[in-house]
């Protein structure tokens, strides 16, 4: 991780953790504005932070992780494209991918802590093999969503990222299903209550899965592109996208 990204994380993490799901625009927006976060992607000459998409990933991911109830990610992408444009839809999909990745990691962490504390049948839930296997599947999905988000951010920084963002949003959408299901399953009934924080994460995950392109949207977009390119071109084109950056 670069110094800029580490610095961003050190700045955003405690603030987002403090504000979290109880933040209100009226009361708390000035806090993120003071840090210059809404201008993250604007060039320094325009009074911005001069960050790139991998920097934005750090902020989006943490906003998802802490279930931040402020439209900060939306404000950040608004500096790059007008709502309704094709570009805005694409970077919006990336933004949601990164938030999904963060929220999945948070839900996984919450689930692991819970099963390590909660006792049933005379031992910790986490000691039951069935519970371990479910959480291992969840961990795999969270890892895939996080890697996909990183891959998409890197592609955006390289240039044309239509393939990568489509693939990443689709992959993250798929991870939501298993992640949210396992998180609620291992929590039992408490996870379904308003007082317990899990729903801040899972209700966002379910919403974000539909935002900026659902599964069938992106699988059709990707499928059409791959088919138009032809079977023999699939692999060479896939690897050329990263080779060129070398």
């Amino acid at each position: 991780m670069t110094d800029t990204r580490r610095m961003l994380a050190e700045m955003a993490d405690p603030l987002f953790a403090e504000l979290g799901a109880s933040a209100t625009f009226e009361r708390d927006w000035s806090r993120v504005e003071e840090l210059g976060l809404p201008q993250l992607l604007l060039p320094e000459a325009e009074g911005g932070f001069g960050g790139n998409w991998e920097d934005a990933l750090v902020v989006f991911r943490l906003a998802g992780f802490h279930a931040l109830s402020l439209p900060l990610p939306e404000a950040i992408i608004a500096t790059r494209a007008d709502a309704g444009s094709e570009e805005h839809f694409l970077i919006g999909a990336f933004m949601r991918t990164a938030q999904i990745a963060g929220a999945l990691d948070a839900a996984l962490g919450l689930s692991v802590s819970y099963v390590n504390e909660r006792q049933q049948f005379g031992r910790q839930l986490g000691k039951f093999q069935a519970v371990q296997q479910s959480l291992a599947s969840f961990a795999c999905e969270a890892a895939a969503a996080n890697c996909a988000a990183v891959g998409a951010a890197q592609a955006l920084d390289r240039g044309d990222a239509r393939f990568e963002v489509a693939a990443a949003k689709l992959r993250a959408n798929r991870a939501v299903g298993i992640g949210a299901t396992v998180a609620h399953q291992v929590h039992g009934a408490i996870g379904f209550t308003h007082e317990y924080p899990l729903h801040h994460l899972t209700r966002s995950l379910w919403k974000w899965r539909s935002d900026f392109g659902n599964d069938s949207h992106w699988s059709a977009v990707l499928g059409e592109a791959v088919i138009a390119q032809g079977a023999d071109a699939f692999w060479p084109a896939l690897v050329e996208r990263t080779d060129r950056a070398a």
Partner: protein
Amino acid sequence: MQTFVTEAIEWPESAPALRRKVRDLVDAHGEKDPVRRANCWTKADPEFSRKLGEAGLLGMTWPKEYGGHEMSQLERYVVIEELLAAGAPVGAHWIADRQSGPLLLRLGNEELKRRWVPGMARGEIFACIGLSEPNSGSDLASVRTSARRDGDEWVINGQKVWTTGAHVAHMMIALVRSEAGSERQAGLSQFVIPMDAPGVTVKPIIDLTGAHEFNEVFFEDVRLPASALLGEEGNGWKQATAELSLERSGPERYLSSMVLFLELVRYAGKHPDPAVTQLVGRLAAEAWTLRLMSASVAAKLARREDPALEATIVKDLGNSYEHAIPELVQACVEMDMASKDALAAVTGYLLQVSPSFSLRGGTREILKGIIARGLGLR
């Protein structure tokens, strides 16, 4: 909690040239039959392996002194992902190049290295791995095959099973119990056993497709010199499990069904159908993600970090993916499974071999246990 951290991968500048070299070689000497190109890292073609050796594409990261080419881990990664994506028959040298050669170079004495490694880099010496035994599949700590000291020699007795490629291999690196009466992980050692040593017998196990990939290997008073001990006596468990984590993350863990995916794309081009188009998109997204994850583990290995948890995650997701493809294709496309059509033939073949995907290199349940430990649940 973050289980998998990926950073930008510095792909080698030589990547495009290496890819071209592999593609030319596969065009000239590779396998043409789509069924034979699926699951290609189990297809042994010694002639093809020798061609790769001649082209300098085996033992790529090994020291020149032992016939290697002193290239980077990621250059090797580029070559193996090209070979697998093209469905090249790499099975003969696969284990030697991936595991046994590196293991010998890391832990072997001079005599072992000189005897085996240069031939591996030429694509002339092939290896197999003696881990599983009857009643000891994933539970390797229960191996019973024994090594007993007799003067300057070791005497091996016992049996290995599910040994991939033992019938084409020239040597085996076996995990055996070298301390009589020891229990579980203790008292195990690794030995290098020439497959033509007196007392070694190989018996084929024919799989449900009629193919011969696995074997039973019997050892009856096989006498080995003291120098056949690999690494440290009694340290075999640690050595063998470290080797397994190297085995788990490679691109072979998600590319076994790549040929079928490509046949599906070909089919979709001729028979436009929204459901098939969406399946292509979904599988392409997964392939892209898995490539990123697998390469990210390779980059960590190249930096000498230990990505054991990440490697296990890649294997689990990769196996699920390659296992799912034939079933998803069959569910989506109307086909006559008895036809000679490429799509049906490859689907039929992969349906039959895919149960092995989540067995080789540790069953899914064992992998999930390792991931659970990584999460702090065990």
